[in-house]
């Protein structure tokens, strides 16, 4: 710019950066982008919403409360915290063919697994098989750290309060109770089963638990959780893993089993069934409820009407909004040249 070149020693560098002239994209909310954009988003959302709703409608869910409130309820006699064990039998009828694979959940409500002190009350080192933490569990487990000065394994509130109702399902075929097999394998996260929780390398497993005691509420020690399958014991017991993955909200359900075995792999036929519940877990004291759920899934998981409806609503709003914007735009046209 300057014709003569005297002393420019202090002259700032002439780069796009220092002169704030970096090439830049300068987006602007012009009508040409925003209105079609809204229409597009709206239509896409409506499309997705319809797809989700249709998918969700196709999913079948059957759920039953078995807390045992009310005299008429078959589990009422178990709801009283009387000496256990108590078994209650729940008869029910499914009016439709519940297409397989069917998943069986138990659900709890008003149960605060997400309470801060509850959710930290475990010892991850111990649960990953570290024997040192068998002898001295971490302080986070308090008050379920020790029992009579003996370390509790697995320690902490979560483990201690593990859900211990058990279920057996029978189909009533011509007045005979035909058992429907539950498959309790593979119901936990892969990483939980393979990485996060590990038993100590000691064989047999029970030796690792010498000098420790079982959690106070547990009827059996950890290495005897599944008497049928020796591999499903200790910290990698599937039901234990499911329980240890704490829920985000106070009303939650957890996977108990799949119904995989023939002849029910294709689904549960319509008919009457009987659920035999070993009722061990008290919830009435804090106003909680218990339920069981039968459900099948689609590509998007279980039944979820909310998502589809939300998509439809938002999509419609977007389209409406775009119409409003179009009217406004036409009426108060942005001042343009010429």
């Amino acid at each position: 710019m300057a014709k003569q070149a005297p002393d420019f020693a202090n002259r700032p560098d002439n780069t796009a950066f220092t002169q704030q002239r970096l090439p830049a994209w300068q987006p602007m909310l012009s009508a040409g982008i925003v209105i079609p954009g809204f229409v597009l988003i709206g239509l896409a959302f409506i499309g997705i919403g319809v797809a989700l709703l249709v998918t969700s409608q196709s999913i079948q869910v059957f759920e039953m409360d078995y807390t045992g409130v009310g005299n008429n309820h078959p589990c009422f006699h178990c709801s009283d915290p009387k000496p256990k064990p108590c078994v209650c039998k729940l008869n029910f009828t499914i009016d439709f063919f519940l297409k397989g694979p069917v998943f069986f959940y138990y659900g709890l409500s008003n149960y605060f697994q997400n309470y801060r002190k509850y959710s930290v009350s475990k010892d991850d080192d111990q649960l990953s098989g570290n024997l040192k933490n068998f002898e001295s569990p971490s302080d986070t487990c308090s008050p379920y750290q020790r029992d009579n000065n003996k370390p509790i394994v697995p320690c902490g509130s979560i483990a201690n309060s593990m859900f211990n109702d058990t279920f057996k399902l029978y189909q009533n075929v011509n007045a005979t109770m035909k058992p429907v097999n539950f498959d309790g394998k593979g119901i936990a996260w892969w990483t939980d089963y393979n990485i996060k929780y590990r038993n100590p390398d000691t064989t047999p497993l029970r030796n690792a638990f010498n000098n420790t005691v079982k959690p106070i509420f547990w009827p059996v020690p950890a290495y005897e959780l599944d008497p049928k399958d020796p591999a499903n014991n200790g910290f990698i017991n599937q039901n234990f893993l499911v329980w240890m993955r704490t829920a985000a909200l106070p009303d939650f359900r957890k996977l108990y089993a799949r119904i995989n075995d023939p002849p029910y792999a294709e689904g549960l036929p319509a008919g009457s069934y009987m659920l035999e519940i070993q009722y061990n877990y008290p919830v009435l004291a804090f106003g909680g409820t218990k339920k069981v759920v039968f459900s099948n899934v689609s590509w998007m998981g279980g039944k979820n009407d909310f998502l589809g409806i939300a998509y439809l609503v938002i999509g419609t709003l977007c389209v409406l909004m775009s119409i409003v914007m179009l009217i406004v735009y036409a009426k108060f046209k942005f001042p343009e040249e010429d």
Partner: protein
Amino acid sequence: ASQCCRNRKPHEEERRVRANDREYNEKFQYASNCIMTSKYNIVTFLPVNLFEQFQEVANTYFLFLLILQLIPQISSLSWFTTIVPLALVLSITAVKDATDDYFRHKSDNQVNNRQSQVLIRGLLQNEKWMNVRVGDIIKLENKQFVAADLLLLSSSEPHGLCYIETAELDGETNMKVRQSVSVTNELADQNNLASFDGEVVCEPPNNKLDRFCGTLYWRDKKYTLTNQNMLLRGCVLRNTETCYGLVIFAGPDTKLMQNSGSTKFKRTSIDRLMNTLVLWIFGFLVCMGVILAVGNAVWEREVGSLFQSYLPWDPSVDNFLFSAFLSFWSYVIILNTVVPISLYVSVEVIRLGHSYFINWDQEMFCSQCNTAAEARTTTLNEELGQVEYIFSDKTGTLTQNIMTFNKCSINGQTYGEGPDPLDFTPFNPLADPDFCFYDDTLLESVKVGDAHTHKFFRLLSLCHTVMSEEKSEGELVYKAQSPDEGALVTAARNFGFVFRSRTPGTITTTEMGRPVTYTLLAILDFNNIRKRMSVIVRDPEGRICLYCKGADTVLLERLHPCEQELMNVTSDHLHEYAADGLRTLALAYRDLSEDEWEAWSESYCCADKATSCREDRLAAAYEHIEQDMMLLGATAIEDKLQEGVPETIAVLSLANIKIWVLTGDKQETAVNIGYSCKMLTDDMPEVFIISGNTVHSVRQELRRARERMIELSRTREGGKEEGIEGWKQLQCPPPPPSNLMDNISGEFALVINGHSLAHALEADMETEFVSTACACKAVICCRVTPLQKAQVVELIKKHKKAVTLAIGDGANDVSMIKSAHIGVGISGQEGIQAVLASDYSFSQFRFLQRLLLVHGRWSYLRMCRFLCYFFYKNFAFTMVHFWFGFFCGFSAQTVYDQYFITLYNIVYTSLPVLAMGIFDQDVPDQRSLEYPKLYEPGQLNLLFNKREFFICIAQGIYTSVVLFFVPCAVLSDATQSTGEPLADYQTFAVTTATALVIVVSVQIALDTGFWTVINHVFVWGSLGSYFSIMLALHSQTLFLIFPNQFHFVGSAQSTLLQPVVWLTIALATTICIVPVLAFRFLKVDLKPQLSDTVRYTQLVRQKKHGRLGARGGSRRSGYAFAHQEGFGELITSGKNMRLSSLALASFASRHSSGWIDTLRRKKPTHVQTPPRGSVPLEGSGCCIQQPPPALCSYGNQTE
């Protein structure tokens, strides 16, 4: 490392120093000459620096949080969520402090280890500076730095003179002369000096550079010591072979070090607002904590107590009230991220970036003086975008401070209006070739030998304090205290009266080729009160004469009565000169008889030696002799206007900035400069002049001015019915209410002089003055003192909630620069004191428009956008915990993973918003200069205020509601496709966090208006880093190493593979963003801001013209917009006749000159300054002389 000790000693009453007597002096424990500006050493760095940093409220607050987190019952977050950001912030600051201090150590060491020659036991020894003690005698050589504050004892030069340069001390580059007391000068060599045992008693150390008061006691005699005898540390010895000095003040006691105090810390209005908001947020935080604690109490009582079989209460926390109390603190910890520690750091980083952009701006680089603009403080940038009042000095700021001898009046005859420049070389070989004069009659008159003319130039060659340097024969260089004086002496030189050299007692000149030496009997020096200087000389023939030059007001009063007629003629000339904007001086002489001189000399000596009231006595003595003088004539010096000043002022006033000029010049000069730089224009309906000498008359004039303004406004607003009635009702009570004054839309100007200003600044007049002056578009205060300048600034600061900017170049502007919100120093001719006191400095007034309209505007915009987004993102982030509290028994459970909480502010969301805060632009720089109206949002503080703050936190809270309840509603029943429920805590945490990061990233993408590569990298990089860091933290590898730290193993993979999760995130994002998008679109459509319009047009044009046309832009549209925003209302209301001719002319010319645009577009590098249209302002120094219209009439009326 230096070994200075810094023990404080008791307060010093007076200082006693005995030469060559270390033992005696050591009794007083004076500071040694070792200086230590560094704050730390290796051992003390950590504790001292940490202590300093924890004095910041923010840091202490986070330390407090950290302590809370260490209490296990309370700790709702791991300790590292606080300590990592805190450590990061502390260490960044510590590293910065450490580097700063390292350089201070280095420079201290270098200075302390300088060598100086000290006289010890009669021998000269080399000593390091730091080992010099008070009372030592030091030998200095030419071009050496003075090591401490010395009393000059003797010098190699005659009469004990020595010359120093004080650039490092006060920035003035001219040489100054110092003289030793005559008795000590006789000591001459070092043997005598070694036995010198005089004792100096003087004032304790202070920071007054121009004053020293002490007494030397030696051989039972007393000698008065003044600043004239002192050599201060930091000066450089010049033109003096050697000299000896006695150390009086050393090291930290020297005036240089006493002056390097910390400067007053200025805060911006955004800073203050931010602090208020942070306090409010704390209040909000406490409220949330209380709500949740109450919730916790209720929950524990109703539910928790029953849930105890599964979750027993802690033995120490056995009741719900105590639990609620703990829960409160837990929530304080969790929710503290509403005020993240990174806020303050980010603000500093952004400001630093903006400062660098100012320093780097090539268009604020002055190639003539090789100076780039400099942001000397990094904390005020955004306030540059909010300036409403500019207070400007005139000389050196609006003008170049290059003085040229332009006209003169000798014995009633005026000279200086010829056609061609004179050629002096044939007449005078010693002439300065750069000097121009345009009247050959004056040269003729000199050649003819006109006695008055000769006397005139003789006076100019004798009556001054210029130092000359003659490198080789005839090659004279003058070093003058002020450029005026230099111009006068140079004029005399060219007209044949050449000042050659001076000694303390003589002045040697060459008069018409003949060398003459005058005996200099006395210099009656200049000061601001006297406003004149005189010399008394004895010519070779023995005649004694007093030559005096000074301001006409003081000089004309002291003339001999018989001079009345000449005085009238000369007065007329002076008025003419002043009307041309020239600086004038009157010259006079007085012949003295030997008796008169003797008598006066005695009284002078008496006054000079007086110990008390010396200065008053001297002034009285001067006054006594400067009487009955004969008028010789007057000189007129042109003060050249700086380049681009009128254009800059025009643009700034279009940007609604009010410009006040505060000058020490006379009224006429100031008014004329006002006209030539377009502050005052012919279109102004009236220029009010306030020049009353009493409180009463000033009040009268101010009132009358106001009434007149209302009257004129009324006639202009005539069309509007309500206006008339309104005025009628309100006109009766004087003084009119200020809101009425606010409505005055006319372009009035006010000129007030120093006397009247003094009255106007009195307590009861303040409001009256402010309301009148602020209704004017331009205000000129003339004849003001430096103190008054500061008072005016303070006045506006007090009465108007407006941002003020003071710009000046000289030492007299320092007070004004310091008291304004923003001080700008012009690094020009008058030293660097103004620059040192300033916040920004550059070398040309015209850069001010770029500083304000481009850098200031951008800084403000960026800072506001940054703050809005920053508060938004933290509310969106934090409030999710609040909603979750209602679902987790108010247990202070976090929604997110701890690592996410730690990294959210410092990694995942910090850089995109920083990039926006540093690089964002809404319109390019040329546009903001073309449409000065774009500056208005800053002045009105529209972009970030309490309202905007509430809008952005409301948006943040809305986002948090969506981010919590949408995943909550979707996930509570959802399952993976393998049937496992998705409602587990970790999946929920990952989903919410991912949705949050995506929402805030989309939001920053919407907010960013200027996507450079860096923005792209940061936005995409932040998203990328979120996913990669999360996957890493949830990976098996890390878990296997630290099983106890990474509970979330596998959650990311498991969660992010679920389509439902992504559908949830998409849904949440849409719900958060769509309303914002729609709102913004409608706002742009229904209520477009000027910047939207400019930006839109720019983009449309870019598309039309393709890439090439993008930068140059079409000028044609400039008309359309300025028309719409700036003037539309004026035109429709029929006021367009009053429009500034400049603005109209330039816009009109733009409209019609399409070919110019075409031409300009061909030169893409050409950068235009806006309205430089048809008005002939090409020449920078060209003063446009316009007769002031209503000025005189009104001015006379009032008198």
